[in-house]
């Protein structure tokens, strides 16, 4: 069906390879594009893509962004920055790293934080060992990202190192360079007992069409801890596909917050493997769609060892003709006794034309486990609405207040105050009567 599109990316890759000369990763890219060719773009006949049709994105021949492009991005940078947050900041414009906009000084010794293009020169063996080969059955977009590996971030934190100051990765997209595809690749490697907070913030212009195909790989050694925020605020005409792959060693901990507000066609995949005893993961998510936005969240957690724990709580708010998808798969493998997994997904439909498909999936091959899941789809509570209106509050304001209260349950879980406040502001800003409801936060 999308052979033309596949071929387009193949020839784009050959163009890139020529441009790059025979760089270190030529072989890796070549192998990946080969695998992508045999995978092709996913179709809705595949179970994992049943509700998300990627054809709109295959119809457009997205090219690699022109390099050296400098847009007037100061205003956008201010949109992306989190007031009150002291952070290390790496900025990408249309997929390419901007050294002049970035600041990473004051990092502890032996911590590696650099853009991938530089790291590919300096730390090639590390990167090759971390990326390795994707599985044949992995997500084709993940494979496509590997094929176009060019830039992104390498963050490597040595044993016992605790980085207090969060790392903020800002991806600004869509200014003037129409129809480009960016494939940022981020690699986060935490040695034993290391700890860090990473914020990925995707911000884009509404008036241009572009395609972000991002992959983040996180490798956690024993007892390390990663707090990860993904703020997806792409432009309204953009396509955003994101894969977040997590490998966890014993007693490591991941706290993931995924907030999806932008984009026209969005798919976020998180795949976590809890590979050793005592590993824990908590996934929080919020997706809010208006207009004709389509936002799909797929998560898969593999419990591969005993006494591992997962918590998942996603909420969706869909208005107008927006469509949401939630698919949360938890697989408890046969050795993973004493697994403790709980999942919930709640959705609020604000219009008769909004839609959501929600599907929890539990596969359990061990016998001594504690697993639960629950999903809900509903509308604003009429009793609550009437209560507020009977207290002199406008219907529209009352609807906004209740919508925000629903979304807020996810936002209040965010410990990092500047992130929380930024999101409160962002989420409230999307609702009618923003000024009035700002006060209502509990």
């Amino acid at each position: 069906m999308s052979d033309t599109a596949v071929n387009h990316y193949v020839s784009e890759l050959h163009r890139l390879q020529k441009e790059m000369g025979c760089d270190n990763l030529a072989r890796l890219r070549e192998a990946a594009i080969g695998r992508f060719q045999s995978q092709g773009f996913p179709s809705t006949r595949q179970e994992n893509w049943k509700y998300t049709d990627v054809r709109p994105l295959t119809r457009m021949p997205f090219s690699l962004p022109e390099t050296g492009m400098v847009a007037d991005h100061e205003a956008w940078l201010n949109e992306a920055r989190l007031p009150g947050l002291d952070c290390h900041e790496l900025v990408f414009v249309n997929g390419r790293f901007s050294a002049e906009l970035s600041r990473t000084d004051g990092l502890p010794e032996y911590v590696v934080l650099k853009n991938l293009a530089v790291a590919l020169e300096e730390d090639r063996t590390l990167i090759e060992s971390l990326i390795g080969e994707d599985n044949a059955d992995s997500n084709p977009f993940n494979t496509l990202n590997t094929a176009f590996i060019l830039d992104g971030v390498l963050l490597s934190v040595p044993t016992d190192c605790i980085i207090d100051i969060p790392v903020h990765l800002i991806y600004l997209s869509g200014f003037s360079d129409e129809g480009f595809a960016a494939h940022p690749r981020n690699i986060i490697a935490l040695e034993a007992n290391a700890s860090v907070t990473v914020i990925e913030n995707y911000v884009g212009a509404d008036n241009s069409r572009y395609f972000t195909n991002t992959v983040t790989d996180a490798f956690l050694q024993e007892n390390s801890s990663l707090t990860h925020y993904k703020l997806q605020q792409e432009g309204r005409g953009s396509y955003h596909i994101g894969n977040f792959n997590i490998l966890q060693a014993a007693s490591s901990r991941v706290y993931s917050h995924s907030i999806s507000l932008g984009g026209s066609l969005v798919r976020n995949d998180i795949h976590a493997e809890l590979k050793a005893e005592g590993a824990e993961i908590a996934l929080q998510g919020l997706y809010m769609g208006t207009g004709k936005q389509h936002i799909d969240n797929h998560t898969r957690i593999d419990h591969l060892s005993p006494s591992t724990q997962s918590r998942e709580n996603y909420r969706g708010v869909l208005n107008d003709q927006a469509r949401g998808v939630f698919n949360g798969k938890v697989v408890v493998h046969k050795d993973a006794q004493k697994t403790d997994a709980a999942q919930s997904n709640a959705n609020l439909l604000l219009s008769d034309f909004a839609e959501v498909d929600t599907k929890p999936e539990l596969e359990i091959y061990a016998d001594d486990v504690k697993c639960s899941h629950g999903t809900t789809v509903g509308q604003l509570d009429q009793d609550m609405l009437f209560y507020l209106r009977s207290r002199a509050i406008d219907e529209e304001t009352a609807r906004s207040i209740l919508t925000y209260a629903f979304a807020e349950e996810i936002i209040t879980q965010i410990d990092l105050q500047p992130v929380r406040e930024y999101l409160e502001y962002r989420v409230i800003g999307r609702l009618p009567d923003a000024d009035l409801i700002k006060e209502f936060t509990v």
Partner: protein
Amino acid sequence: MLNIKNLHVTVDDKEILKGLDLTVNAGEVHAIMGPNGSGKSTLANVLAGREGYTITKGSIDYEGKDLSGMAPEVRAREGIFLAFQYPVEIPGVNNIYMLKAAVNAKREYIGEPPLDAVEFLNLVKEKVKLVKLKEELLNRSVNEGFSGGEKKRNEIFQMAVLEPRLAILDETDSGLDIDALKIVAEGVNSLRNRDRAIILVTHYQRLLNYIVPDQVHVLFDGRIIKSGHRELALKLEEKGYDWVKSEAAA
């Protein structure tokens, strides 16, 4: 102040109020009593403007204005207040900010400047004493985790802050122990004045020991079948509703 004439109301095509007449003047307290299912809450909801109730016949006149078709928030700004029989919990919505928004929406409607944070807080401090509500409850989500009695007191507290012209209290007394009942009654009594009318919906006369009504009405099967004074409530308690029913049928 309130003039209801031959009111017929249906819910889901089922007629619940079947020709109800009621006149309440400023300064008066009216008790409406009646067995479960007779239509008391329906009347309260219709007055407050809840959706899903269709007026098929008759009229409701409030201060010279026709209430039918008026949005609930506009009624509230016009001075109507409903203390709910079952106050809903609203997670994530701060009790005190909701009340501040309510006060200021009302003030804006009547052309007064909004209260600032300090003025509002002073008002709250003064009124919260009236119903002996723990101040820590104020900063929680609306009614969330409140005991039954606290919810009812919160309703009266809101009434005290919002200073309505017409207050409808739907079974504010049910589920209260005697101490809580006294507190609520004192709160309500302190809010009685010349300009304010209060409708007390109850099916126990015990509330009326503490709040003495000007009139008592018996609502049965969607109609007011008997009206009288305080003694009527006592007689109802003693003899039940059957004698009123047979009297009305005769």
